[in-house]
């Protein structure tokens, strides 16, 4: 009954929008990346990644992103599992609790971590009152990783929680029925069946962690130079847009690479909806 042809034309404005605001900008960045100041073709903006400074930043970014993702996963899975076991009727409440912090400005939240972690900050006053040794982690890689874990943790929890909600309770019961104890049921049934959520979560944490530059600015104090910081500086300080674009392309390649690796792991994935 619905005139599908005619209704599908409703997407036309969006299709045009996608062409202009999604696809075209990518060609622009590619154009800048493959040219120099004078506008002639060059690959030097891409090969610039081999520069030891850039290479070091890239490696550092990958390391920080890796640890951020791993810690997020380790923290998030139990959270999702506990929340799932609560069998809440109102699932929106869970989303609500994890989205709410975003309404406090992101910059301020990271700044608050600066205040918490600083040498005479809240954490250390608590530690010294308890008679424990104080920590001096602000402006280190550890602080940057902690800030990123903080910022991206909800992106890991929500997809895993969603995936767990989709598992048929009877399947879990069937495992117990066939003699599996809690641990076997978890490793053989629950974990594999929540794989899609884990992979979504990994992508949603790893990609922004790889490319972030604000957290490292605030909690790294300029001492932790990630690839995102290098790119930002090329645009704002050095004003070398071509080099900045080149490095962005390299970053994109790494993002695509990591996603295709994840998709290989998840051979059964059908569609790329991350939320």
């Amino acid at each position: 009954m619905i005139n599908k042809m005619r209704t599908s034309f409703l997407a036309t404005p969006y299709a045009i929008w996608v062409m202009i605001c999604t696809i075209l900008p990518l060609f622009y960045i590619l154009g800048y990346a493959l040219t120099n100041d004078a506008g002639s073709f060059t690959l030097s903006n891409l090969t610039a990644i081999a520069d030891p400074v850039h290479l070091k930043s890239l490696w550092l970014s990958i390391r920080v992103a890796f640890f951020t993702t791993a810690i997020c996963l380790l923290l998030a899975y139990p959270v999702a599992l506990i929340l799932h076991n609560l069998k809440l009727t109102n699932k929106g409440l869970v989303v609500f609790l994890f989205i709410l912090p975003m309404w406090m400005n992101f910059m301020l939240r990271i700044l608050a971590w600066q205040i918490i972690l600083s040498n005479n900050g809240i954490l250390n006053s608590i530690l010294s009152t308890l008679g424990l040794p104080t920590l001096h982690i602000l402006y280190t890689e550890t602080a940057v990783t902690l800030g990123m874990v903080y910022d991206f943790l909800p992106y890991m929890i929500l997809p895993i929680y969603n995936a767990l909600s989709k598992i048929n309770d009877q399947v879990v019961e069937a495992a117990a029925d066939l003699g599996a104890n809690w641990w076997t049921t978890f490793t053989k049934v629950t974990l594999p069946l929540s794989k899609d959520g884990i992979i979504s979560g990994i992508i949603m944490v790893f990609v922004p962690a790889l490319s972030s530059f604000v957290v490292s600015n605030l909690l790294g104090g300029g001492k932790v130079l990630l690839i995102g910081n290098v790119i930002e500086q090329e645009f704002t300080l050095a004003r070398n847009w071509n080099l900045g674009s080149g490095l962005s392309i390299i970053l994109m390649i790494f993002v695509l690479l990591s996603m295709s690796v994840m998709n290989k792991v998840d051979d059964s994935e059908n569609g790329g909806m991350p939320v």
Partner: protein
Amino acid sequence: MNKFKKGASSLYLALIFLFLYAPILVLIVLSFNDSMSRTVWGGFTLKWYANLSSNDNIMEALGTTIKITLTSSIFATILGTTAAIGIHYMKKRHTAIMLGATNIPLLNADIVTGISLMLLFTRFTPLGEFSVILAHIAFSVPYVIFNVLPRLQSLSEACFEAATDLGATPMYAFYKVVWPEIFPGVLSGFLMALTMSLDDFTITYFTKGAGVNTLSTMLYTQLRKGIQPELYALSTILFLLAFALLLVINFKGSARKEVVKNEK
């Protein structure tokens, strides 16, 4: 054993929520701190709240932020909802292409999205509020689409057909049958767009040009000189407003569900 497990679970959840909300607590406390120092408690005050409206810098940034956030999320919601309906009725292959393109801003690194949009905009228009709004629409439309589309997919085609069978025009059938079903998706898409736009720094930073400041970008420039405490006050107000708003929406939603349950 079971009790121990329960206790451990609750403790763990509490710790995670402490982790997520500790910085917010710190900021709220700071908004009442009489000292300019970030680490010393100088007594309770409301002066930062009182000073807020007379701080032109902050009020201007707030105005810009609200303008950008509201405009972009409203446009994103309209564009995204029509797009979702269109995509839903497309041929399968076209749907896949459109969804692939829609995923790009979600999966691409923010910094790359910001830079690529900036490179495009500088060619055609001076950077400013307008370019920021365009950029915000660009990254929030996917959230709307991915919130509306599942609603459409779970909607039975038979409902629409039944409505037309009973004599409704397609427009009327859409309004009476389809729209109420997808509305929750549209609303959550809108809220998501609102949240993402309000919380965004990176893309705004690259597409804003000189002279325009949202709260996020203003904070970024103030980081080195020190934050004006009025900003803690403003953020606390915004946070509490959001908290109240989301609470109302959430409870209204669950109250309605409750009614439906009872009717069964």
